[in-house]
């Protein structure tokens, strides 16, 4: 019997590595498929339904017609034109001289920058503090690296008005301090935050910075939505606070910066002594990133460097455009009985669905959290795709946050027509 099994070519032993245990489910795979199957209007996954700005598309065309070298391998840690302009651009913002060759790693999207960071710095036994709600990949990446996640929730502060804003969700200083232990290797912050849209204020970042310095902890700062802040809210880079550059890895995304998520160009920026470890992971995993896309992003950043702070800057125009979209979506949601949380930044808005009394009689979803069931009902019955917010909480805390769903408003469509 065993002989014939072997002769058939079936393997009898356990095949997969332990590092991928428990991380095989993925919300994007699940919900994108469902949205596609039902041809739903997609306000779920975070990507624009409009084109990247003209100058960036032009830059890409120029790059791909720019001679054979644009189609062959470039420098593994980042195309020279790109790392040089990124260094120049961000040196001006962070207020220090950033070395393009030592302090920057270009990656396949911010996603891969996160991956390199965790693989480079998190060993078995290391604790990583993650603030909930969090972009869903942080926890599985920590797990895959053998680390333990230590969760800390943003909480609705006391005495909020009837109109909620992402600013109403805050960290408790005592709770934050209590999460730091001798085993804490890193803390992950995401500002502007996905899914809430919270933009951490100076004081909040100082509070986190003080603890990082006190406990000698690395800060991983996911700032992919850094250019998208509204109502005059200012984005602050934690790496620019005293004592923080030498312990912070800041992550950015060309996809979110230039509305070209499908290009998958991102970066990690930080002190050379930390970045070198990310580079080791990179050279042993993907090694290079696509050349032409990097060249185009470099041209885009050079243009933005030249017009920075002026009306012509895409980094001014896009948030201005989305500012209105955000308000329009909030009005539409209110008109159908949902309670939106107005985001200070980012691509997304969450809304409280508890006022709606929908009969979710779908036996296939009865064991799932309420928001998952609601989202599936909305896709199947109303042709509208969103994302359940409990997906951004750890399995341990999912039950407490079942009443919100997330909308992406980086869309040109007329929101009210979807309802």
């Amino acid at each position, binding site marked *: 019997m065993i002989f014939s099994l072997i002769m058939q070519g079936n393997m009898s032993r356990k095949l997969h590595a332990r590092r*991928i245990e428990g991380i095989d489910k993925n919300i994007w795979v699940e919900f994108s498929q469902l949205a596609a199957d039902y041809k739903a209007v997609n306000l779920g996954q975070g990507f624009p339904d409009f084109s990247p700005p003209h100058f960036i598309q032009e830059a890409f065309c120029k790059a791909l*017609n720019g001679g054979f070298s644009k189609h062959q391998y470039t420098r593994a840690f980042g195309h020279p034109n790109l790392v040089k302009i990124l260094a120049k651009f961000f040196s001006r913002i962070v207020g220090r001289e950033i070395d393009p060759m030592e302090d920057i790693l270009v990656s396949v999207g911010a996603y891969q920058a996160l991956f390199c960071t965790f693989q480079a*710095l998190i060993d078995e036994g290391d604790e990583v503090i993650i603030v909930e709600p969090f972009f869903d990949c942080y926890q599985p990446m920590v797990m895959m690296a053998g680390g333990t996640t230590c969760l800390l929730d943003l909480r609705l502060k006391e005495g909020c008005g009837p109109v909620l804003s992402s600013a109403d969700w805050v960290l408790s200083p005592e709770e934050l301090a209590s999460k730091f232990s001798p085993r804490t290797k890193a803390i992950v912050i995401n500002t502007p935050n996905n899914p809430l849209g919270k933009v951490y204020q100076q004081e909040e970042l100082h509070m986190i910075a003080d603890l990082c310095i006190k406990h000698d902890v690395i800060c991983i700062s996911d700032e992919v939505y850094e250019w998208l802040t509204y109502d005059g809210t200012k984005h602050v880079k934690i790496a620019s606070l005293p004592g923080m550059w030498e312990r912070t890895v800041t992550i950015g995304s060309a996809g979110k910066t230039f509305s070209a998520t499908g290009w*998958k160009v991102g970066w990690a920026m930080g002190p050379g002594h930390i970045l070198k*470890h990310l580079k080791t*992971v990179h050279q042993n995993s993907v090694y290079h990133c696509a050349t032409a896309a990097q060249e185009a992003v470099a041209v885009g950043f050079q243009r933005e460097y030249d017009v920075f702070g002026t009306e012509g800057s895409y980094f001014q125009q896009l948030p201005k455009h989305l500012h209105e979209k955000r308000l329009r979506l909030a009005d539409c949601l209110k008109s159908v009985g949902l309670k939106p949380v107005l985001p200070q930044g980012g691509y997304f808005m969450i809304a409280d669905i508890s006022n709606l009394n929908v009969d979710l009689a779908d036996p296939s979803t009865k064991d799932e959290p309420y928001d998952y069931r609601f989202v599936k009902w909305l896709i199947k019955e109303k042709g509208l795709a969103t994302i359940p917010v409990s997906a951004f909480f750890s399995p341990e805390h999912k039950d407490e946050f079942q009443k919100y769903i997330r909308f992406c408003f980086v869309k040109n469509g007329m929101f009210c027509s979807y309802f």
Partner: protein
Amino acid sequence: AYKYLNSLCYKMASIKHKNTKRIEGLDKNVWVAFTSVAADPSIVNLGQGYPDIPPPSYVKEGLAQAAMVDRLNQYTRGFGHPTLVKALSKVYGKVYDRQLDPFKEILVTVGGYGSLFSTMQALVEEGDEVIIIEPFFDCYVPMVKMAGGKPVLIPLRLVGYVSSADWVLDQEELASKFNSKTKAIIINTPNNPIGKIFSRSELQAIADLCIKHDTLCISDEVYEWLVYKGHEHVKIATLPGMWDRTITIGSAGKTFSVTGWKLGWSIGPEHLIKHLQTVMQNSLYTCPTPLQEAVGQGLLRDFELMGKPDCYFTSLALELEGKRDRMAAMLRQTGMTPVVPEGGYFMIADVTALNQDLSHMGDDEPYDYKFVKWMIKEKKLASIPVTAFVGEDSVKQFEKYIRLCFIKQESTLDAAEAILKSWNKD
């Protein structure tokens, strides 16, 4: 005292911010060292493996067209853009002569490199041994180590002097490398750097051992279309009993001469590919969309022409065969002994007969590293030392060989020829 404490604190901070165990010792890399040296435009670069010939125009056009479509500038399906995976299942369905499920049996990755990584991370862990045949594409060993596995090396051995076919595995030696801890064997055919194409019987011998010991086979076939006259590329996954235990890796970069697009793929049974997909969704999630669309369109175009001379898969091999023969002749003229490859775009050459005295360069590097550095400096010609592709124990066997890349324009080959012709005139 404060300054001392401050600097002590900084030192302590540095200690805590050191690298993880998984990447210990993996920071060195032959490419990082040699590509910067060869970036000097006055040097004729036959080192790193990339074409200086343009990609086919329809592939570039495909990318330009894709970039004009709004949706194609945004995220696509994580495990592979539908146009691309469907095209891959068509092309490879024909090659394998089996129905390939585009969604369950194919994963698109960041180059062949990314497929190797996804495979190791998904399937190799501490306690696993992985057999690697020397000389090997240099990333195999560090990737196995990073996954916690133990590389077990076995060299190809020379039994003749003419072509890459003269490098073979000793069958008894091969069998002795397999044991109960062996998780996988990695094969690379056509092989980089030698250019060997494993014959059907050689692959059968490997397959028999895989089946006997119930191991996986990771088959790196990125140069699969670059097969020269008289030779046949055989896919080990098509041998009986092998489909269920093999991951086969391919590359758009090598297929369409667009190494800078960094797209590749893994093909295999669902029960293995699903684990690679798990790694993908937890590492970089998705590959660039417009590039995938363009590769998909390119594959569909060449699928219609498969078997005909104007199929790029065939025409590129024909073009390269001429370059291969030209390079072999140039090297022979100088006194080097080239190993004529059956496939791929590299050629290794034995430099022993040149009797180049390099004792002035010290003792701490193998001969080929010294020779390559000397040749860059003195002859302005870049190549790669072959011992970069072997383990310590095999250095003596391979240190008289250098690797040259011949997927270069005629003008580059002219420049190389000029250098080689005037070699003995100094």
